[in-house]
């Protein structure tokens, strides 16, 4: 009976978050459908990228890290493509063995794996355990083989530890009919998902937790990270198991461990892991990183989901190389495009404005601080000593009103509601009491008896109360006004109401001051009439007031033990103070230059920024002549050693002409479709036909040059806003837009806009997202773009918008993190950003339209030349003075030539400053300019026109010197820490051997040393050898591993794999 009753009472049962989430994987995006494929990639790719970044940041902190990624050269991935193709056939074998494996695991029953988990003991009979060991052994080898084939191409290129890389492979196979039977959807296939990243890797302890719900490295602090809570990967594991019943394989190694740790496990609804293969140490083909393999069922893979996700990820994360191999064995390789990592975002302490009452309560409860001031300072950003004191003062004032006890300078006095209540004055006095014989502070309560004092007291209190109620009234009024604001539409009215509220607030301040003065009044009265007190010895009253005194003095309270009253007052005070906006160094944008360059590379845009490169023409002219003059001087110095002659040297126009036209024409030498000789001729023609002043002459040349050079240019513009904050957390908005006819006009509006949050692409719930709404709110017609029906811009464009910062974690609309919630500030921030880009787009489109109309004009006019000439010829050939002197062809040619000549326009003011925006732009492009100038140099120096270089009147200067000179003098020297484009010449340098070059310390691992260490009879693994060779450095160990494998391949040593570990001995 008793048992039964108990059971009835226990109706509410405690579930677990794991149990809950397991059954609801759709909440995080794992429902059947195409998106599920994406979700798998998204979850693990996010983690992988976080891991890679974490690794690099960690290494960059060390001053002499030898294992950080080497980013200063292009990822040399041309040869990768064919390498994976080979293991295409292996897929089926894998499946076969998987099925074998499954049948071994007695999963014939419907609850295949649950049986395995729940009936632990039953399964692990002795019989099986023996068999299991063998299976485990086999399985581990299997896993390693798979991993090695996946990584083989990278290993062959020797970049696996140098290049930040993520590989995702998706294999497709027929699903077991047993598994698909319950699912209604058709076309269900089984998928094997593999992901490898050479990021941080996990330590063994972390690895034990990995895969459990809410186990996350990122949940404790709000940071600009991709993942945040630890829902993604566990949900993926759950879904994988739910659909296929196969365990998950994880191999991870961090830099501190010699061996990687491999495990195969199920996760349970109790949020625990059930290992099929316990963490086993294995030889890893990589120095650090993580590899995950799992199987899941889903409807058949189609393009446009995973591949899009990865492509977009690559756009926002150009610092990582991404490789995706889809079920059709097609490879998508996105090489790294920049040579630097983004800087590490800082952890942001919560800002008071983003803290709600629950947060504060939690923090207080956890606090170990002695005082509230130190508590505030430690836990919040923008909380100075003074502000913390202000908060406490406010709280104390509030408490005085609430508890009816005034704090005076030398004591306390109670605040009575009616005149007949006794008035108590409380103060600390040094008394000897208790067991101690020394005087100590003791609370003494006095009653005030003097009528005069009572009268004064009461008058003051009445006035005080009046003030107090006055304040209350004003607060009510303010509230009404605030309600009114929500109902008014016009800005004028709102600002009017706001100013009224401001007045009210001023009134409140006034009353508050008044209150304070009244308190002081009581104080002074009491001081004068010290005698009229009567000490109360009633213990009850004394105790009551000593408690109250403690409560009122909040500044002396301990944070962890606040009373309700205290907490409420504190929170009110905490919220009513205005704080500085949170710091913005917690956000790290991708950066506009990176975005632009990524898009240029990814979309293969043609963008030449020479407009800015050439800058002020007259200045260039001076520079050119200076340069030539110097050259000439040096020449003469060398020849004659005569300094007197130097004064008379002058540079004549023709020299400048020659020099400039050569440089300009050389720009096109890279472009095969262009005929530089024609171009050179044209430039010379302009120079010769124009006898005006030099400046005008050069203006013409440059204009002609620029028009020709930028005619086919595409447009790309990125804008990164300054960081701002919302909800107490910082965020930054950036966007980039490309406009190119190559792109074509997308039919669907969603192909135009790509949304990113913390660099992660968001493909779903487009219409719901604040980013989409912001894009729609821009008046794109202003910027010469058409619109889709849903107000998204339409045209041959690609628009990427990224919102970064810890702020976004608070803004996601759902756990699947696909859409940002609306926020006025956020939307307008995005809008400003896009408008800045729009303005640049408008300039570009206008310019292009101008060039096009010129071209169109020329074409149209040219069309009319033949009929015109024919008619004219028919008349003129029959009479007139030119009767016998003209030919049809000749006239026609003359007219065609006339069209092609540029129409010389009046020279613009040469001294005029370029618009500000341009200036900024120029600054950014300095680096590119340098590259281009180096091209000039190389062209001039290396082209066959060696003779022409002599006409520069610097015949004896080495070619490389000319190049350097151009660097330093012809184009203004500018510095920039950033290298958007890896310089090609560097790429062509012989590839440095990472390991050899870094092996600077003893022991020097030569083949000989290794061979000596190896034994003829005994099998030795890495650990043995490391001990033998006294290797202390992880890098050396890695080198040893590589060397051993090389030797094994050559056949000079024997190799053997046992339990995932390599063993070697001499032949």
């Amino acid at each position, binding site marked *: 009976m008793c048992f039964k009753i108990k059971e009835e009472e226990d109706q509410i049962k405690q579930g677990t978050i794991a149990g809950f989430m397991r059954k609801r994987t759709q909440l995080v995006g794992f429902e059947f459908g195409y998106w599920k494929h994406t979700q798998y990639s998204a979850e693990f790719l996010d983690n992988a990228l976080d891991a890679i970044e974490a690794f690099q940041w960690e290494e960059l902190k060390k001053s002499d890290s030898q294992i950080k990624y080497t980013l200063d050269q292009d990822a040399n991935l041309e040869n990768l493509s064919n390498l994976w193709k080979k293991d295409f056939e292996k897929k089926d074998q894998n499946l076969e063995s998987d099925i074998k494996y499954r049948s071994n695991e007695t999963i014939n029953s419907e609850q295949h794996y649950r049986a395995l988990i729940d009936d632990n003991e039953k399964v692990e009979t002795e019989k099986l355990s023996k068999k299991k060991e063998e299976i485990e052994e086999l399985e581990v080898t299997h896993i390693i083989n798979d991993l090695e084939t996946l990584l083989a191409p990278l290993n062959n290129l020797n970049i696996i530890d140098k290049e930040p890389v993520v590989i995702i492979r998706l294999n497709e196979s027929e699903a077991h009919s047993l598994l698909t039977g319950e699912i209604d959807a058709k076309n269900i296939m089984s998928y094997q998902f593999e992901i490898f990243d050479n990021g941080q890797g996990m330590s063994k302890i972390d690895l034990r937790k990995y895969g459990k719900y809410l186990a996350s490295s990122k949940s404790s602090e709000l940071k600009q990270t991709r993942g945040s809570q630890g829902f993604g990967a566990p949900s993926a594991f759950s879904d994988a198991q739910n659909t296929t019943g196969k365990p998950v394989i994880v191999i991870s190694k961090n830099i501190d461990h010699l061996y990687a740790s491999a495990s195969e496990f199920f996760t349970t609804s109790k949020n625990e892991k059930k290992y099929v293969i316990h963490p086993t140490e294995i030889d890893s083909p990589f120095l650090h990183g993580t590899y995950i393999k799992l199987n899941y069922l889903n409807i058949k893979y189609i393009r446009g989901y995973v591949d899009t996700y990865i492509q977009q990820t690559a756009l926002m994360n150009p610092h990582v190389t991404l490789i995706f191999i889809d079920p059709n064995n097609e490879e998508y390789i996105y090489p790294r495009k920049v040579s630097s990592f983004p800087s590490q975002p800082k952890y942001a302490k919560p800002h008071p404005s983003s803290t709600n009452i629950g947060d504060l309560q939690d923090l207080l409860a956890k606090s170990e601080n002695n005082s509230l001031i130190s508590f505030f300072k430690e836990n919040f950003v923008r909380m100075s000593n003074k502000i913390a004191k202000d908060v406490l003062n406010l709280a104390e004032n509030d408490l005085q009103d609430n508890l009816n006890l005034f704090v005076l300078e030398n004591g306390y006095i109670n605040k009575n509601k009616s005149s007949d209540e006794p008035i108590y004055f409380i103060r600390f006095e040094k008394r000897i009491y208790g067991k101690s014989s020394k005087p100590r502070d003791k609370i003494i309560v006095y009653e005030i008896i003097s009528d005069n004092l009572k009268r004064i007291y009461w008058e003051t209190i009445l006035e005080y109360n009046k003030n107090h109620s006055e304040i209350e009234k004003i607060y009510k009024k303010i509230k009404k006004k605030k309600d009114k604001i929500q109902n008014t539409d016009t800005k004028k009215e709102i600002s009017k109401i706001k100013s009224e509220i401001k007045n009210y607030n001023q009134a409140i301040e006034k009353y508050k001051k008044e209150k304070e003065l009244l308190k002081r009044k009581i104080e002074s009265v009491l001081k004068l009439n010290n005698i009229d007190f009567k000490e109360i010895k009633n213990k009850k009253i004394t105790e009551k007031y000593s408690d109250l005194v403690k409560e009122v003095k909040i500044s002396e309270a301990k944070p962890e033990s606040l009373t309700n009253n205290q907490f409420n007052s504190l929170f009110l005070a905490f919220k009513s103070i205005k704080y500085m906006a949170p710091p913005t160094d917690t956000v790290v944008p991708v950066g506009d230059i990176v975005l632009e360059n990524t898009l240029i590379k990814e979309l293969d845009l043609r963008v030449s920024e020479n407009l800015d490169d050439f800058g002020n023409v007259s200045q260039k002219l001076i520079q050119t002549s200076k340069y030539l003059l110097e050259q000439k001087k040096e020449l003469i110095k060398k020849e004659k050693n005569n300094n007197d002659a130097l004064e008379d040297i002058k540079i004549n126009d023709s020299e400048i002409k020659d020099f400039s036209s050569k440089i300009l024409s050389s720009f096109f030498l890279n472009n095969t479709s262009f005929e530089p000789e024609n171009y050179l001729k044209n430039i010379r023609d302009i120079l010769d036909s124009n006898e005006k002043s030099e400046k005008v002459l050069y203006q013409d040349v440059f204009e002609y040059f620029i028009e020709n050079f930028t005619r086919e240019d595409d447009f790309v513009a990125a804008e990164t806003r300054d960081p701002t904050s919302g909800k107490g957390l910082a965020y930054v908005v950036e966007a980039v837009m490309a406009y190119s006819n190559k792109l074509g006009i997308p039919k669907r509006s969603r192909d135009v806009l790509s949304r990113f949050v913390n660099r992660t692409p968001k493909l779903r719930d487009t219409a719901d997202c604040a980013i989409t709404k912001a894009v729609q709110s821009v008046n794109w017609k202003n910027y010469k773009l058409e619109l889709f029906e849903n107000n998204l811009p339409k045209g041959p464009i690609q628009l990427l918008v990224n919102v970064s910062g810890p702020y976004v974690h608070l803004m996601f609309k759902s756990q699947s993190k696909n859409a940002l919630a609306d926020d006025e500030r956020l939307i307008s921030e995005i809008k400003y950003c896009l408008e800045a880009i729009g303005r640049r787009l408008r300039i570009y489109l206008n310019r292009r339209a101008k060039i096009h109309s010129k071209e169109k004009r020329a074409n*149209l*006019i040219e069309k009319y030349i033949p009929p015109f000439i024919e*008619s*004219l010829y028919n*008349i*003129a050939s029959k009479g007139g003075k030119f009767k016998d002197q003209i030919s049809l062809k000749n006239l026609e040619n003359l*007219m065609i*030539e*006339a069209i092609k000549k540029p129409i010389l326009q009046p020279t613009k003011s040469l001294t005029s400053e370029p618009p500000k925006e341009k200036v900024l732009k120029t600054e950014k492009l300095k680096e590119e300019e340098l590259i281009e100038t180096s091209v000039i140099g190389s062209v001039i120096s290396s082209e066959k026109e060696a003779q022409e270089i002599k006409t520069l009147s610097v015949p004896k200067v080495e070619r490389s010197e000319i190049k350097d000179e151009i660097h330093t003098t012809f184009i203004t020297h500018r510095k920039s820490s950033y290298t958007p484009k890896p310089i090609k010449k560097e790429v062509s340098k012989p590839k440095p051997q990472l390991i050899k070059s870094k092996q600077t310390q003893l022991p020097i691992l030569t083949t000989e040393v290794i061979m000596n260490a190896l034994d003829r009879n005994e099998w030795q693994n890495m650990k043995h050898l490391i001990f033998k060779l006294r290797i202390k450095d992880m890098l050396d160990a890695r080198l040893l591993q590589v060397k051993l494998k090389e030797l094994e391949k050559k056949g000079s040593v024997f190799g053997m794999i046992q339990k995932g570990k390599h063993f070697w001995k001499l032949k």
Partner: protein
Amino acid sequence: MSKQKSKKEYDFKAAKELYKEYLEIGEEKKKITLPEGTVKIDDLNRREAIKRIHDLADDLIEKILTTGKPSIELPSRSSSNIIWDEKNDLLLLGQQIMQKQFHSLTSVVDITRLIRVLEMVYSLLTEDIHTSKRDIFYNDVKLFGKQEASDKCIEDVATMLYTTRNSTHIVANPRGGCVGRLRIRDKNDIIDLETLGSGTWQISPYLDQIEILESDAEFILVIEKNAVMMRLTEDRFWRKHPCILLTAQGVGNVATRMFLKRLNKELNLPTFTLVDSDPYGHYIHSVYLRGSKRLSYETPFLATPNIKLLGVLTKDLDEYNIPKLARLPMKPLDIKRAKDLLKEDFVQKNKKWEKDIKMALKDKVKAEIQALSTHGFKFITDEYLPEKLSTGDWI
């Protein structure tokens, strides 16, 4: 009332006085001296025209050889360049010059068309044949696109050469007819315009081949409508009242106007128009009087400045008791035309005319010539015209 008037004998006193007046001052008026600031247009013979074309072509080729950018200059025919010569009562072309550049997108098509027309004119002149505007258009439909374009070019070419359109050997379609007391020679044929039966002589566009032999008419009457002309021919109006009748079926075309001009100049006869009592009728009269704006360059060769508007005037409608049924309300277009007319200098200077148009505008009423037939078909020949000519009731 009409019956009373029909018994009256009309003496044509007013018309005869006008005739005498012309005889006195006629000789002086024949010589037109153009005011300063206007373009001088010459009627050219073939050889002169060919020479001008060659000059123009040489100029173009010279431009091509030097700059590669040919251009043509011609007097602007925009309304701002049309000047009313008050003394001679003519619309003339001012000296604004329009440049058609080949290397400008706006005029490249124009100049190509012009040169094409010029080429055709050149071959017409060298072969000494005539052709119509329509023929020119069909010669190069692709280039011209619409006949309006080629028509415009034809006029431009004439101004370009500073000559009349007739000199370019492009002629308008014959549309006008003439009948009455007149004898002419067309090439080798002598035609007596009294003996054409019920028909009329079609005014030939090749006016340079026509010679006016003799006439004993006392006045010339230009009629807007062919139907009215047929009525008068049927009545042998010129037998009773010696005159020459002309019609152009609407606005006078170049041939009709030129022929009228010649008749007026050579015979020195009082000339009248009989048009509908509506703004368009008044406009037709103004074209005979001063020339059209479009062909203002040729005005000296086309306009007949001493032509008088005989009827039907707005005031005639009341004076001759035209019933309300026969009067029509003015349409918006009519009102606009009337207002435009009132803006013209030559209308403003002629108070009678201005008054008449204002009257029509006030009542917003118009009527056709045929409205007179409400008093009987013979009313116009027997009463209306004789009475008006006798009393001098014209504008």
